[in-house]
Structure formats: structure tokens, C-alpha cells
């Protein structure tokens, strides 16, 4: 790991730790406060759902956690790495080694088959699982040679999940993973995410507008106005079979 380290007492039970994190966007002459001082900690293998209306700051937070954007002030630690202090090159390395992304619109490479889309990422990872294995975890072992345009939305999203987990990331960041899917397909995708969490112990953060999904999480962070307005801990996660929307 080439990322900069800072003197910080390592907290083994914490994957992420945020302190007074803020983000201000300048839009023309107006300043938009997207994050107004956010503090939280996330434990290994935890499933966390981020809920909140549009513009409440959850995507901004996910982008900073994923190393795609810089915070304006405050600190964010991934284990003992201060992400908020990394330059672009180190952020790329951080994403490459630790983070798996699942996007709302899948973002698969149309010219590559399901297998190849996964292999594209395993080629640059240090300790990846075979693409077949990743695709089997998401239940697509029979669709490996299909191109994205030959797959349904749910299947494409599951390929995206397989691609995200194949490099055995420490965290899985999912931005509206079911946003473009119907209820039945969405449930299959959530099921796949939970399966990964269970099998690999990957810390999973899911942004959603869909309040139903909060029931499968260990913890739910409610966002409003650039701040965490409420934290809800689910003592017992509901099974996916019980979900519907």
C-alpha cells in the first residue's frame, strides 16, 4: 500500500472513520454546502444503508469514501489511511486495491462479455478470485459469454457486482444499485450483495431512495441537509425474501 499514512491509533474494529467531514461546491457565485460536518464509524463486514432525499449529501459522502472526490475539510480514515490527504495517484491506488463500486447504471463495457468485464478488473488486482467464481456467486455462471446488450438490467447489475467483488475488495460502495430496476430484479440484486457480504465479509455501503432496503442493513444512516440526521441500528436483519416494493 503506497497510500500516505498518518499517525493515528489504529482501531481494528473500524473500516471507515469520519470526523467533521465537510464538502462545499462552488456553483457559479453560490456556494453549496453538500456535507456540513459528518462524523461516523463503520465496522468491518457491516452492511450500511444510506437513506435520504436527493441533495442530502449521501452521494457526496460515497464519492469521498470511494476516493473520487476531495473533502473540503475534516478527516476520513480508511483503516489507518487518511483518505482526505491522498493525491490523485494514491486515490487511484486506493480504489484499485480496496474499493469495489456498483453503479446505478451498471457501467459495463459493451464490447466485453460478462466474463470479460469481470476479467478486466481481475487483471489489475493483486489477489483476485477467478471471474467464473465471481459470476457464480451472483448466479450468472450460465451467462458468462453474453454481451451487456444481451443481458437484462438485473443481470447487467449482477455482472457489475461480480466485477466489483472479483478483486476481493475491502469495501463495496453501491450507489442506487436498484435504482434502474424493477422490484423483482432489484431484490435479486440486493440478494447478490448480501450473499457477497456473507461469503466474503465485505463491508457494504448502499445508497438508496428505497426505504424498504433499510431492513436488510445492520445500520441505517439517515441523511438530511448535508448531515446525518439519524442513525438506526437493526438488531436483526430481515431476510431478502421478506422484501417487496
Amino acid at each position, binding site marked *: 500500500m503506497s497510500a500516505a499514512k498518518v499517525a493515528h491509533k489504529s482501531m481494528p474494529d473500524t473500516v471507515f472513520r469520519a470526523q467533521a467531514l465537510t464538502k462545499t461546491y462552488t456553483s457559479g457565485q453560490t456556494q453549496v454546502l453538500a456535507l456540513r460536518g459528518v462524523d461516523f464509524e463503520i465496522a468491518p463486514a457491516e452492511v450500511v444503508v444510506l437513506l435520504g432525499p436527493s441533495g442530502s449529501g449521501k452521494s457526496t459522502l460515497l464519492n469521498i469514501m470511494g476516493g473520487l472526490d476531495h473533502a473540503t475539510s475534516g478527516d476520513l480514515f480508511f483503516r489507518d489511511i487518511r483518505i482526505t490527504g491522498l493525491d490523485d495517484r494514491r486515490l487511484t491506488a486506493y480504489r484499485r486495491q480496496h474499493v469495489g463500486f456498483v453503479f*446505478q447504471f451498471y457501467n459495463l463495457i*459493451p464490447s466485453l462479455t460478462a466474463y470479460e468485464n469481470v476479467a478486466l478488473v481481475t487483471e489489475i488486482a493483486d489477489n483476485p478470485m477467478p471471474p467464473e467464481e465471481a459470476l457464480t456467486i451472483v448466479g450468472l455462471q450460465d451467462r458468462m459469454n453474453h454481451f451487456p446488450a444481451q443481458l437484462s438490467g438485473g443481470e447487467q447489475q449482477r455482472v457489475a457486482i461480480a466485477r466489483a467483488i472479483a478483486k476481493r475488495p475491502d469495501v463495496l460502495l453501491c450507489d442506487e444499485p436498484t435504482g434502474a430496476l424493477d422490484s423483482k430484479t432489484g431484490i435479486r440484486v440486493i440478494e447478490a450483495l448480501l450473499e457477497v457480504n456473507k461469503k466474503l465479509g465485505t463491508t457494504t455501503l448502499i445508497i438508496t431512495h428505497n426505504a424498504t432496503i433499510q431492513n436488510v442493513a445492520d445500520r441505517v444512516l439517515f441523511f438530511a441537509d448535508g448531515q446525518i440526521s439519524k442513525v438506526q441500528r437493526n438488531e436483526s436483519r430481515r431476510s431478502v425474501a421478506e422484501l417487496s416494493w
Partner: protein
Amino acid sequence: MGAGTSHSGGGRRRRRNPDPRGGIPPALDDTRAAYYERYAFADVFAQVRRAPEFLTGEIASIPGVAAVETHVMQLALLDIPNFSAPATGQFISIPEKREQVLNRLYMRQGRMPDPASDEEVVVNEDFAAAHGFTPGSRFAAILNGRLRELVIVGTALSPEFIFAVGPGDIMPDNRRFAIVWMPEKALAAAFNLKGAFSSVSLKLLRNASEPDVIQQLDAILEPYGGTAAYGRKDQTSHAWIDHELDMLNNLSRTLPPIFLLVTAFLVNLTLTRLVVLEREQVGLLKAVGYSNATIAGHYLKFVILIALLGVVIGSVLGTVLGSRITTVFGDLFRFPFLIFSQNPAIYLLAVVLSLLAAILGALRAVNDVVKLPPAIAMLPPAPSQFRHFLPERIQLHRIVSQSTVMMFRNITHHPLRTAFTTLGIALATGILVVSLFITDTMDNLIDVTYSLADRQDATVSFGERRSSSVLYDVARLPGVIAAEARRSVPVRIRYGSVERRIVLGGYQKNADLSRIIDVDLQSVTLPESGLAVSSMLAQILGARVGDVVEVDLLEGQRRTVALPIATMVEDYFGIRAMMEAGALSRVMREAPTVSSVDFSFDPSMTDALYAAVKRLPTASGIALQNFSRKNFQELVALLVTTMGGIYAGLATIIAFGVVYNNARISLSERARDLASLRVLGFKRGEVLRILLLELALLTLIAQPLGWAIGYGLAWVMRTQLAGEIMRVRLVVEHSTYGVVSLIIILAAGVSALVVRSRVNGLDLISVLKTRD
């Protein structure tokens, strides 16, 4: 190729700046025609040993003759101060009691000589410039064996000597060959030609028959030692300029269409992309109620405006560049003035072609966009359906990396674009090959001419044929290592209805200095009897080895003989026929005689040799190979740096344009994919590699194709340029292909660098939120 110019060698200087106002590529043809017209360039020329002045009236009465000009015209060696090498002067008389009617001089400096003076002369401007001579400068000449001091009173240009080559030379050498105009009285006295002339030029009436006039002129001059008269096409200067203009015309027919094709393709591709990127705005316009026709009209106006802007910029650049080329060639030809003919057709062609390419590209794109329902048009285009390009059971991804798989799928997914891109790069490569092959071909020409064929160091020529004893005179000169005699007889050679006026050379049987080589560049031993003809002459005559040709001997007994073609030889300059010297003597029915002597000499004795040659009373001219070779090389360098440089520059721009355009299109089509890869942890370099791998491959594939295209184009140019004046052997060195590919790859590399900044600027966050 343009081996001939009326200036080369040292002391070149700019004489005039062509009027840049027009900025239009001038018709050099028009300029030459006007020059000929204004300075009364003659139509028919003849040399004679000594013809009495009263023949002038008889010649003027030949039907079809409009004007007659007679001169005393003689060659003589020159002795130039501070210039050790002997030079040759072509002396021409200036009429004493009348105005010169034909081949009039264009005075550049000074005045005409005093008719009564026996030392005042006018020289051609190139010669004066080469030696830094101005009116008042002096030099000496050996006129008919007597050393005479001469003073320059003026410099001039003449339509008769736009391209001036000395005897025995193949290239102009301004330091060593002068045209010297001298008052008739003094020149005639020096050569014992009082009341006589040795050269005649005729201007013909518009409807006159040149062959008839020539026939009658020959009949009149024959008793006085006339060699056969000839028309403009056999006049050295005119023929060379013809060859040069042909070369320029061929160049302008061969390369520009390729440039047009490639640029039309680029314009088409670029404007198609511009419209495709406007897809969402088109959807919006349709949604608020604009008709398809209105939208199509809007985008057509848009691309027409861009195309017109390009045409304006291109026209300005083209005019500047055209004016630059004009200056270079105008200077090369040394015309006293340049005529700029306004040619709006060229500009019109540029406008029409650019607009057509732009409009066709835009129409295609607009049509694709406007036929979509507004709701769909407002969304970005759906992902393309890709296919396996190999059977599915072949697990390609196990053999090559995924980025390589992406590259192959993209290439096969856009076959047309791939083909055009490859072709575009290949054409640029080909044009570069054509721009640079001139060097290789000319180097080969110089090598073969000076190292394989004409290996002598110098050739002394004599005004008239001499007995073979002059060979020993030359052999005895200080430093001379070997000497070989040569006999040259002007002849008309005829096969069927085709006839040419050439020089028949008689060579010593085993000549080792001036050698005759065959098409395989092997030395040829001349046959005991019969002719060896250059393959070009055989081709012109339509004759083959074994055929018998008719030869009119234009010297001595002036017989017509039938001679078989015994062998075919290779030469690059002029059209020649050769015989073994003994065989030629028998045909001529004369004792062995000599017209010139080729010799090699010890370079350490150069000064002594030069001094001795200047004192050789019988010599009328001398050609020095090292001077000739150097002039040639300078000319090739000039050609390559001007025309070659311009074409090479354009080819490089095309290569850059094709690669950059393709990379930009790929980037705008795949920005989202590439940004997604960055999010997934791909480094900038890895993403750039994915984008450019395809172009790198296409650039590499295009190389052998481009080499082949280049060789083909070079072959076409070589073939178009092959003429009676000069031919070249098509040679493209391997290193040239290497240099060409290096330039193309560098141009592609520069476009990759430009694209890199765009890849670095990819917006990583927006891709998380946008749909395919």
C-alpha cells in the same frame, strides 16, 4: 525529375520577387509563352560550318518563314580570374548594323557592347552571378587559339538559353559555362567568318509546316557544312524546360487528388461527429415542435459555416504556399517576369469539394438523429450490440488481455471507420514515401551515371572533328592517367514513320572510362558492327534488337545508311545511339577522327592540368565530372527541400489529423466507459492505453500498406516523368521506408499526447449518475 535548371552552382542570388498580389499559382506555361513571344524565340535552328551572308535572303524566301536571324556562333575556352578550372563560353554575335530580330536579349544590367569594340561583351546573368561579375569585370577567352581579354559591359537573359548546358555536360554549371554575346565584327574576325554565319534561327508563320521548312533549309545549308536543322523540341533549353513543366504538371495531377480525398474524409467524419454530439439538443428541438426539415436546415447551415471558415483559412494558406512555390520555381527557371493568371476554378473546386464533404457527412448524421422519436433522441444513444469475432469456443480472453479484446472488438465493430482510418494513415505514409523517394532515386542516378557509366574525370571537346592525334595531345597533359577518344556524329534515326535527331557516339572498343551499361547495370562491350541504342530510344522508335533502322548521317558525306540494332543499353539522359569507333569510321567512310576525349587525371595535378587545358588550342570546351556531380546534388537537395518538404509537411499533418480525429471520436463515444474504468481503479496511463491501442495497431497495419501505396505512387510518377530528356530508375531505400514510418508514428504520437490531456480530464463522478 527536374534535373535541369538554368542556374545552379555557386553564387546564386535572388533576382526578383514575383508579385505576390495575385497569390495565385501562376501558370509557368503562360509565363514561358509570353517570354518567348516578347523576346521572339525562334522556331527552327541550324548550325553550319561557314555560310555566306547572302544565303540569308534565300532562307527568308522559304515558304512559311517569317523572320531569319543569323549569327556567328562558336565555342571557346575561357580563362576566368581567380577560378582555376577551365570554363567554356558559347560565343554569339550581336548584329552590327541592325536590331536583333530573333532570340532578343533581356538586359538585366549595363548596356549592349559598342559595335566597334573588340573586347566588350554581354554575358548571361547566371554566369556573372556565379563569379560575382558586374559591368566592368574582365575575363579572358581563347578565341580560335588566341588569348583575348574581354570586358563585361552588361548582363542579360535570353529565351534561347533559359537552361544553359555546356558541351559534354548533362547539367548546367554557371561557373563553368557562359553565354557570351559579342559584337559581330570582332567575333567574325576572330573566327575568320567575316561576311558569313555559322548559326541560323527562323521564326515561322503560324500555318507553316516545320518539317517542310527544315527540309528546304537543310538543302540550302548542306553545301556549306550544315548539320541538320531542328525545331524547338530538339532545342536543349526548350526541351529541358518542357520536361520541367511536365514534371510540375504531373506532380500536381498525382498528389493533390489524394490530399483532397483524405481531407474530404476527415471533414466528413468530423462534422458527422459534431452533429451526433448534438443528439440531445435535436431531441429537445423536436420535443418543442420543430420540424425535421427545420432542424436539418439548421445543422446544414452550421456545417456549411464551419466548412466555409475552413475554406477561407485554407485559401489564404494555399495562396501563401502557392506564392512560395512560385517564387522557388520562378527563380529556378529565371524567367524575366512571372505571369499570374487568376484561376478562380481552383478556389471554386476547393469550396465545392469541402462543402460537399461537409454536407454529406452532416446529412447522414442529421438523418440518423431526426428520424428518432424526440423522447429517445433526448437520451444518449443505446449501447451498441457487439459480437464475438471468433467462434465462442475459442476463449480469447485466456490468451490476450481484456484491453486487447476491447481493441479487436472495436475494430471489427466499425469496419468502415477502421478501413478509412487505416487507409488515411496509409495514404499519408505513401505521400511521404513519394516526397522522399526522390532523394534515393536521384542518388542512384548520380551513382550510376558518375560511378558506373561516365567514370572519366573530364571531357575535352573540339569545335570540329580532329585527327586521332589529339588523343595523344590530351594524354600528354600533366596528370592525365588515361584518355579515350570519342567521335560524335549528329544523325537522324528512323524506324517506320518515327524519326529522331540524335547524336551517334563512336566509342573505343573496350572503353573503360565512359562505359556503356545495360539494364542490369553491367558493362557492355560494343558489337563489331551495328548499333547499341538506349532502351528509351528503342521504345520511342518501336524497334527491338535485330531490327534495322535507317540513319541519315548529318556530317561528312551525309549518306543514309541502314544499321541493325545489335544491343540495348541503359542511360538516363537524352536518347543516344552508340557504335564501336572503328565501325563508325567505316560507316562514315573516314579515317579515325575524334570529337572529344574523355580522360582521368591525378587530382594532385589539377592546377597544372587546368592551366595546360586552357592553352590547348584545339579545345573548344571542357566538362568536369566533379563539378557536374556537385551541381546535380545541389539541385536534388533544392528539389527535396522545396517540393519534398511541402508534401512531407502536408502528409504529416494528414497523419496527425487522421489519428487525432479518430482518437477524439473514440474518446467521445467511450468517455463513459473510460471514466468507469478510472473509477474501478485503472490508472490514467492504462485508460489512455485502452483508447490508443487501437490507433497504434491501425497505424502499424497502415505502414506496409502505405509503403506499397508510396512505391506505387513513386512508380506512377517515375513513369509519367520518364522522357527523352531524362529518366530515372525507381529506387526506394529501406531506410526511407523506416524514416517515413518514424515520421508517421511520431505524428500519431503527438496526437496521442493531445488526446491524453482530455483523458486526464475525464469526469469520474458524472459517470456514476449517467445512463448508457
